[in-house]
């Protein structure tokens, strides 16, 4: 399974209701394509979003989103960096 990141932007700020609706529509499609949603980040202005998944490949995430009718900017495979001292951001 790969670790995948998806980026999205929205013209209008996303409401909680929109998010809930999106979750409902996406759920079955993600499941069909063996995609497991891990976590999402929504920017404070609610116009940008990053979602992370575990899936066989990035195409599975793309097809799931497209089948559900949701656009996205890009989906990319990622590696998770260990949070040891060497890779942590510098502290002031």
């Amino acid at each position, binding site marked *: 399974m*790969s670790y*995948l990141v998806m980026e999205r932007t929205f013209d209008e700020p996303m*409401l*909680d*209701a929109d998010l*809930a*609706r999106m979750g*409902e529509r996406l*759920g079955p*499609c993600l*499941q*069909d*394509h*063996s995609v*497991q949603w*891990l976590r999402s980040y929504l920017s404070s202005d609610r116009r940008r979003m990053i979602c992370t998944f575990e899936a*066989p*490949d*990035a*195409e*599975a995430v*793309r*097809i799931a989103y*497209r*089948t559900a009718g949701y656009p996205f*900017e*890009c*989906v*990319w*495979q990622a590696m998770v960096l260990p949070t040891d001292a060497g890779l942590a951001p510098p502290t002031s």
Partner: protein
Amino acid sequence: MATPDVCRLEIRLLGRASILRDGAEIDLPRSRKARALLAYLVTSGQAQSREHLCDFFWDGPANPRAELRWCLAKIRPLLNDDTTTRLVADGDYVSFLAEDVALDVARVRELIPSAPEDASTNRLRQVAELLRGPFLEGVDLPDCYAFDAWCVAERQALQQLQDGVLRTLVQRLLDQPDAALPYARDRLVLDPFCEDAHADLVMLLNAMGRTAEARERYEHCRRMLQHELGQVPSARLEQLHAQLNPASHPLAAPPSPSSVPSSNAPPLVGRQRELTTMRGMLEKGVPLLISGDPGIGKSRLLQEIPIQLQGEQFQVLRGRAFEMDATRPYAPWIDALRSIPILPTTCPAALRSELAALLPELGPTADDSGDRNRLFNAVAQVVIEMARTGAPMAVVLDDLQWFDEASAALLHYVAHATAGQPVTFILAARGGELECNAAAQRAVHSLRRDLALRMLAVEPLSPAETAAVAHTIAPEVDGDHVFRESEGNPLFAMEIARSHQGGQPLLGDTLGGLIAGRLAGVGKEAAEILPWAAALGRRLNPDRLAAVMNLPCTTLLQGLEDLERRAILRATDAGHSEFAHDLIRRAAYQSLSEPRRRLIHLQIARSLARSVEQSRLWSRKSTLQPHVSGRLARSSPMAESSAGEVAYHADLGGDHALAARACAVAGRYALRIHAYADAAALAQQGQTHLASLPDEARLQRAFELLELYIHPGMEPYQPPDLEQRLRTLVADARAIGTSTQVHDGLYLIGVLLYLRGRYSDALDVTVLAERAGRTAEPATVVQAVADTARCLGMLGRDMDRAAQLAEEAQQLAEQLDVRELGCELPLALGLVAHHRGELLQARAHIEHALALAKRDRTPWWECYCLSRLPMIELERQAPDDALDCCRTLQIVADKLGDNSGAEAPFAQALEALARLQRGEHQATATMDHALEQLRTADSQWMIAYVQNMAALIHWQSDRADAARERAGKALHAAGIVDQENEIIIARALLARTALNTADRAAALAHLEHMHTVARDGLSARARRAAADAEAAVGRTLPV
């Protein structure tokens, strides 16, 4: 690092299931089955075989192991973390390791290993706290018999244990009745018919000196035993009751006539402790529940909030429930939202259509009826928005014990959604009655658990305060005497004072008796109004009263004035009237004889129905979701909401036909505003009126009432035999009903099956419904089936089923002349034909799908269809046609502008394949470049396809080494995404290239792998590749 005492993971299975990691609640999967699986693994405490789990949780799906894998994938991240693996799936076994985990069920059993009587009181208290709700509340799987039986058995065992714990605690704490009382009440919640628990409560209340409440409790129990069980109280209860009536009330006071006082708000005397607490909670933003006996002054305290906050920046949202609000879902919230005068002008546009379901004055409701969470979220957003942009807000909700299920659920949601915002909830409820309302009780439990809800019990007034209250009405009444009589209950004290003023002898009457005495003394007009007003409910709309009584305006006004002057009614802010206290309304109602009550309710029901009829709301409208029916006619929810009242009065008035009809209408309204428990209750209530109706009306109503259950939100309330009941009704309709009823019934069955995912059965029934004469088009069902077929086709999974669904959808679309479908159906047919190797047919279908995708302006679908065409042409060995297709594909793929998408490189790779097929070997470089981009885009299936096709071309042009290399890469990519067709094709080529180098072992190994896959589900291309490889091996090696 977790300390030994604090577990990092806390799993709560008692009450609403939840998991807390490091103290923070994490989201559970939406799937009930996944939650159930989690609970079972966690509770059983031993390794379970996959086979057992499949049998336990799945009854019949095509691939239970895949379902199990999916569920395990859902729960794994909840249980495991960076350092600890608790869910271990080891080969054929799955187990849960309870490392660094606190599990409430295990803790209960650890604390009480044997009989509760053997445990220490401290342990019993801890267990009583842990047993906060039924085991796995809301996680029922009635279709999984094995799990259901296990879950019910666990629940019963824990409930028995809880009963034992509470019983033992009450016995141990008899000398501390204050401490024992909550346990006795909890025991009653567990079993409201437990006479022993009622008796305990009577005993404890008496021991605490709350004899009036003890007496009411006895009466409540006696009535319940008589009505519900047809029994009389036990000797123990009677004995306790006898102890409640000592001659300690020898009351006699000199009667003295006086004028009747008029007051809208009773005086507030004392209550400094309560006011200080209330103020403190408002300042800190901590929710508060004020509880106490009827008449003790809870509502009066709530009325005091705006007065106390005068001069401070605070907004107050105020609502209250009434005893008859069970017929009006969300009533307290509707009142609360209407208490914001500026809402219609300031409500954000995005929330307006959602809130309009509750407040029709906000405009049209959302076209897409959505779900309950959206409505709840809209209410929460309004509250948050007001609190953020204006002053902090107090949400004041009174008489929680009468909240309907939907209102209680909304309270739970809004309280949680507004946590952390400047919003404070101040609630009030009758302590002894809250336990009879499971929904409200659940909301209180959750607020206590999650939001640290504080409880404030309003105590009786002191002797001096009681006297002060009485003296505001009758200055000369004996204060000590009033205190002895009323036991510090201010309403009781005021009634005694009024009775004293009215010249009534004080004979140790109950509060109800005193009120009844006072009501008997009203004037002629008031006496005429009173029974009707009492039957209509605590809140009075004078217009409605005049209409149902057909009363001249002057008589009505005189009567209302008289009742207000006597503080029986009081004017409200909205220009209406209401009974000063519900006990007064109840006394007025109870003074009516049974036949008179029935007549009054009957007349009210018919009068209300007439006004509703005038608004043409009684025509049948479907409750089906728009995506299913698409035929839902809209009506004014404002007037339709009255149907619940009609149902209530018609029920009590004994008009079965009207009651059944009103239940159906009210049920549809309840569904529209997502009040599912209310809709279920109305469906059930309506069915009790069917037996005496004439055949045709009975069938009609029965269909309407059962239709209420056919809604996604009604799943938890559906009777287990719903489908059978509908089929029986259809059979009845064939025998004695009309053809319209037959096809309506069949259509309902079709939709029910559709909602349950039984598409094929749904289609069969829908066709039957069509044959029975239905004229409406079931385009949505056809569309949904085609959609499923397309989805399976794209996944390349279960293609037989995809083919079956696609063909059924096509037949049905032709049969019913369904047009205007999207690209789904031809695409599904094309994918199936491609899979079967019927390439020309596949091309025709996909070209059709492409045209529809263009028409509908869906670029990605256009691109998907276009990418299939060169694949078909390549497989047909028609590289020139493939190149033509690739040119168009490239243009559309570039337009998608998706930098990391795979469409553009796939188009390039397909073009390179076409060139290779034409013998242009230099295309290899272009293809490798495109493959590199596909690797970056991480599209393994596309890589596998391109590499396999290239390997085949190399093989056919005698470049065995290149073919082997590409087939190896294809095998790797196909393995990642578990694409069996491409795996077989790659292995077939690898076997053949191995033979070429006389590597017999490798060739046989590939062959052996290929034999482990069932051939039935493979594509024609994969089957052909496998057959070629087997033939080659057979020719070369002796098998």
